[in-house]
């Protein structure tokens, strides 16, 4: 009797676990497909439309979505204040945003993981220095730091990448450091050390592989944060240079035409929301899959 009840309970637990695993897979695959579609759109659409942000077509300026423009094309999402196709502009903006996000992630991730490894592995002075640096930086709302640096460096895609890397490397460093601290005393690390592995080998071949999973999870959420920060900076006029389409700068341009052309500010924001949602869901799902310990609220 008890054994039958036990079997049922076990079966139910397994069933629930399997369902949870399947839902995690869906939460990983669906956002990835949508992000993939946006990436393809960002590459292909501006090229298909032969999009030039500076080309003016004043006859068809500020036209609502679905209008046929003077050169016989259908403006799916309407046109902007100089008659440019909004859909092509949004996709070109997505391209810049994704490129800046990816470049920032590579730089911030590399620097952050390296410093985190060094601080966690050596401890002592390097560790104290890193943590105090992190304290100082976390005492700063990072958008403020970004605004301050760009206002001094000047606008430009590379300046944005540098600024956003400075703002986000701390997160990677902290995550890597805390992971290294928990791995450091594991038996397999002790074993490697006993076998005479040097600092370089210990950090890169022994500790780093164990720290990859949380770093990937953090990278997903940081990517969203970086894309959002770039859009906010461009919106404030301290982001990409004039004439470069970005989701943030397009939203800003639209604010001058809110009463006459609501679509200019609205649609780039929708793309931004879709991106944020996808990366948010993806980050949560990756965390559930790879690192249940990071699971928080």
């Amino acid at each position: 009797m008890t054994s039958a009840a036990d079997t049922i309970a076990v079966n139910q637990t397994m069933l629930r676990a399997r369902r949870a695993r399947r839902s995690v897979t869906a939460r990983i695959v669906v956002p990835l497909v949508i992000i993939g579609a946006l990436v393809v759109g960002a590459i292909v659409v501006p090229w298909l439309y032969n999009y030039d942000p500076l080309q003016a077509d004043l006859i068809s300026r500020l036209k609502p979505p679905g209008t046929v423009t003077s050169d016989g094309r259908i403006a799916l999402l309407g046109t902007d204040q100089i008659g440019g196709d909004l859909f092509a502009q949004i996709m070109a903006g997505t391209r810049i945003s994704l490129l800046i996000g990816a470049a920032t992630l590579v730089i911030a991730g590399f620097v952050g993981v390296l410093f985190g490894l060094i601080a966690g592995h050596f401890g002592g002075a390097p560790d104290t220095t890193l943590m105090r640096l992190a304290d100082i930086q976390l005492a700063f709302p990072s958008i403020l730091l970004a605004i301050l640096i760009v206002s001094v460096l000047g606008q430009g895609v590379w300046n944005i990448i540098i600024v956003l890397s400075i703002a986000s490397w701390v997160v990677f460093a902290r995550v890597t450091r805390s992971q290294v601290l928990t791995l450091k005393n594991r038996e397999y690390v002790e074993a490697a050390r006993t076998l005479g592995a040097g600092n370089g080998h210990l950090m890169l071949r022994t500790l780093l592989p164990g720290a990859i999973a949380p770093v990937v999870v953090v990278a997903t959420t940081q990517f969203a944060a970086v894309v959002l920060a770039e859009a906010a900076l461009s919106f404030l006029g301290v982001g990409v240079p004039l004439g470069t389409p970005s989701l943030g700068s397009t939203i800003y341009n639209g604010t001058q035409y809110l009463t006459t052309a609501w679509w200019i500010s609205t649609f780039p924001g929708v793309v931004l929301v879709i991106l944020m949602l996808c990366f948010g869901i993806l980050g949560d799902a990756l965390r559930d899959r790879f690192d249940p310990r990071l699971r928080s609220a």
Partner: protein
Amino acid sequence: MRTVLGYLVRRLLLAVFVLWGVATVIFLVVRVVPADPALLIAGTDASQAQLDQLRQQLGLDQPIIVQYLGFLGGAVTGDLGTSYTLRVPATELIAAALPNTVLLAVLAIVLAVVVSFPLGLLAALRVDRFSDRAVTVSTLFTQALPNFWIAVVLLLIFSRTLRWLPSVGLENPLSLILPTIVLALPLISILTRMIRSGLLEVMGESYIQTARAKGLSERVVIFPHAVRNAAIPVITIVGLQFGTLLGTAVVVETVFAYPGIGRLLVTSIQQRDYNVVQASVLVIAAAFVLINLVVDLLYGFLDPRVRIAK
């Protein structure tokens, strides 16, 4: 008693150290850059003599270390330099703008706490049911909304299309509604999630079982017993989010042309008024450090377990 005092002193020293670091970073970023403030103020057609005189006036002819010490000394004594464009002390501009931002931030925090408590409670009490799912999904969605975009969209709907609310400035209390909502939105979703998970955790603890076993009504079990302990982390989160809130305020104040310190910062950046830029960043960072200090101390006061652990 001695350990508490020691903790207080250590925490204060750390705060001072962080502030010094922030001031140094600001000084380095603003001063050690190719741009010449004298050239920026006087314009490119100024003569060499004019430029030299201006540099002397601004102290830019001094060695960098003297400028740095002067800046630190000024910051300690409350002298943050003069605005290049308006010719008034930067502190005066900040004193006029800061209360507006504080008002906005306090309103946003109050709104966020008032909204997220019932939502989090509802979700936790009906965990995995429809209302819980609805709350969880909407917090996820709210977190994905870029603040500057939602500000523009609300402006478009409520002031341009429906004409219910004023669009910009601060003329009457109605102007506060939209900026407050935009500032509160991300905080609402974070707090709701915190309160939900906090309550779920607390509900599993043995003292709740004890309360139930004593035959107390469910209402008494939930309100004084569970909610009080679940509320403690909320204070920390509110403190930690304050910095983000100040960063968001920069964006929100710009969209709504709200006369706060964020807008002061953005306009002085556009006018290259570096003294005001560095003064307002320093003030915002100082506010952030002080609030975190207070939150940390409050936390130890509210949760005796933290004090013992220290």
